[in-house]
């Protein structure tokens, strides 16, 4: 009677072949000698099925597609099933690296597709999502979420875009051919914060916010204003009664839009933060100011362009410009070292530099900048001629040695016999022409 070995399954380390009864490892050669080629081939096929679907395949006679449950895949999963998913998503229009790693990009593509086809948006590939993926056709409505869905729903031919739009989409990697075939470029799958400065500027001009870009939600230029207003209204609602009630006037750059612009323009220098801002009408300003200082205070001191209380900037919408929020938000990004230098005795250098950056940012995004500090602008432009606009930006955002270098550059540009004290004494007291005349 042959001895029967009842072998209990034991855990083993991956990559360590299980030992056979004779102490030799089970290699394919060994199995082939024991069972023959056909048996080994069948085993390999079964193993591939297991790998593909994550479950034991049904008997050969059963229709595989009907009986085998597709694997549930989610972020963090790896392996050939994920690679297969990525390949399929790419066929539908995604721009994923087919590396078998279910990362945030793959999840974003999955959620976009789920959203478009109306299955539960979870980012996890379940049976319903598999069905949607396998039945969708490239470029179809079901697939459009993988690229820039809203734009493709109302798809405009390349030639129908404005020149600026074509330039912006080109900056993001599109061309006429990929536009026509709806094949997104690599930039489409990058997070907003890792886009280049030029790509960010293009994306914002096209109407994206950092959030909408990362969520792969298209906001076309035509409805960008409404989209920002919607986001700001949502932010205000979330903030509750503390938030201002005023509706932003047409063309006004609100906080979220301002942050997008600054992100696109200066995100490479510093992380742009969103300071608290409330935009108030003149009567709301008066009510709030009088609430702090007593009735009649605002009538004596105002109209004010704004004030700050407990970290909140209150801005008077009736005496501000379209880019005021950009300007005030820029102040909040300035490095402490820069503030110490630029506000040493007056605020003229700080205001001039901030206004030059405001102009740089808003004009790059299609707005006409306002000029509130013409004299200060001239002063800082003259200082920049001794140093550079680029060095001024570094100094303002990064502080430290960049401030030291900027000041040294300007000091080196003083005419013979002129000292920094003389130069500063002029501009501190508003004698801008005399200050500028101190420079070479």
């Amino acid at each position, binding site marked *: 009677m042959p001895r029967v070995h009842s072998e209990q399954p034991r855990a083993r380390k991956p990559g360590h072949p299980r030992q056979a009864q004779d102490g030799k490892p089970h290699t394919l050669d060994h199995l082939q000698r024991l069972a023959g080629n056909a048996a080994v081939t069948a085993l390999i096929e079964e193993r591939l099925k297991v790998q593909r679907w994550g479950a034991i395949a049904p008997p050969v006679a059963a229709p595989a597609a009907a009986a085998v449950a597709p694997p549930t895949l989610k972020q963090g999963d790896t392996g050939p099933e994920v690679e297969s998913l990525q390949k399929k998503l790419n066929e539908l229009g995604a721009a994923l690296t087919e590396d078998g790693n279910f990362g945030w990009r793959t999840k974003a593509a999955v959620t976009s597709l789920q959203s478009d086809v109306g299955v539960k948006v979870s980012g996890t590939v379940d049976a319903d999502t598999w069905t949607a993926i396998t039945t969708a056709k490239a470029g179809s409505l079901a697939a459009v979420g993988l690229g820039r869905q809203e734009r493709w729903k109302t798809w405009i031919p390349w030639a129908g875009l404005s020149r600026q739009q074509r330039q912006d989409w080109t900056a993001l990697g599109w061309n006429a051919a990929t536009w026509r075939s709806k094949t997104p470029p690599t930039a489409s799958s990058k997070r907003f914060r890792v886009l280049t400065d030029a790509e960010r500027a293009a994306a914002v001009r096209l109407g994206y916010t950092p959030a909408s870009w990362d969520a792969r939600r298209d906001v076309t230029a035509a409805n960008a204003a409404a989209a920002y207003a919607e986001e700001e209204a949502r932010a205000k609602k979330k903030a509750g009664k503390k938030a201002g009630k005023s509706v932003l006037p047409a063309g006004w750059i609100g906080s979220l839009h301002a942050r997008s612009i600054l992100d696109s323009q200066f995100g490479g220098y510093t992380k742009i933060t969103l300071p608290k801002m409330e935009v108030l009408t003149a009567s709301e300003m008066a009510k709030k100011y009088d609430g*702090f*200082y007593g009735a009649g205070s605002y009538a004596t001191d105002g109209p004010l362009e704004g004030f700050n209380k407990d970290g909140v900037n209150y801005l008077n919408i009736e005496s501000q410009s379209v880019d005021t929020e950009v300007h005030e938000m820029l102040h909040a990004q300035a490095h402490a070292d820069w503030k110490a230098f630029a506000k040493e*005795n007056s*605020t003229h250098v700080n205001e001039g530099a901030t206004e030059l950056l405001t102009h740089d940012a808003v004009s790059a995004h299609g707005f006409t900048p306002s000029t509130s500090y013409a004299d200060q602008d001239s002063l800082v432009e003259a200082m920049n001629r001794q140093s550079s606009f680029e060095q001024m930006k570094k100094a303002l955002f990064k502080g430290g040695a960049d401030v030291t270098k900027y000041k040294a550059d300007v000091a080196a540009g003083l005419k013979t016999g002129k000292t920094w004290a003389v130069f500063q004494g002029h501009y501190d*007291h*508003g004698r801008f022409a005399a200050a500028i005349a101190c420079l070479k």
Partner: protein
Amino acid sequence: MTEDALAARVMDLNQRAWRLIQADRTGSRPHADLRREAAELQDELNAVDLSELSEDARRRLQKLLGEAKTECRYILSDGKGPTSLRAAN
């Protein structure tokens, strides 16, 4: 007073307010002194009349006057009320 002279006057008052608010922030001077000077400066600021100026000039100088007035109020409120945007940012 000519527009240039008035602008220079407003700029000077604005600069004085800035010095007071800086001193208040750093605590470099006795608060009682700052309060007294802020009250005096407030009177001077309230005496400035911009009504004869062009709209552009009036708007530009009103901004500077408003900043200075808010900063004086802030010192006189012992730091309890709002301050100017430039002082806070």
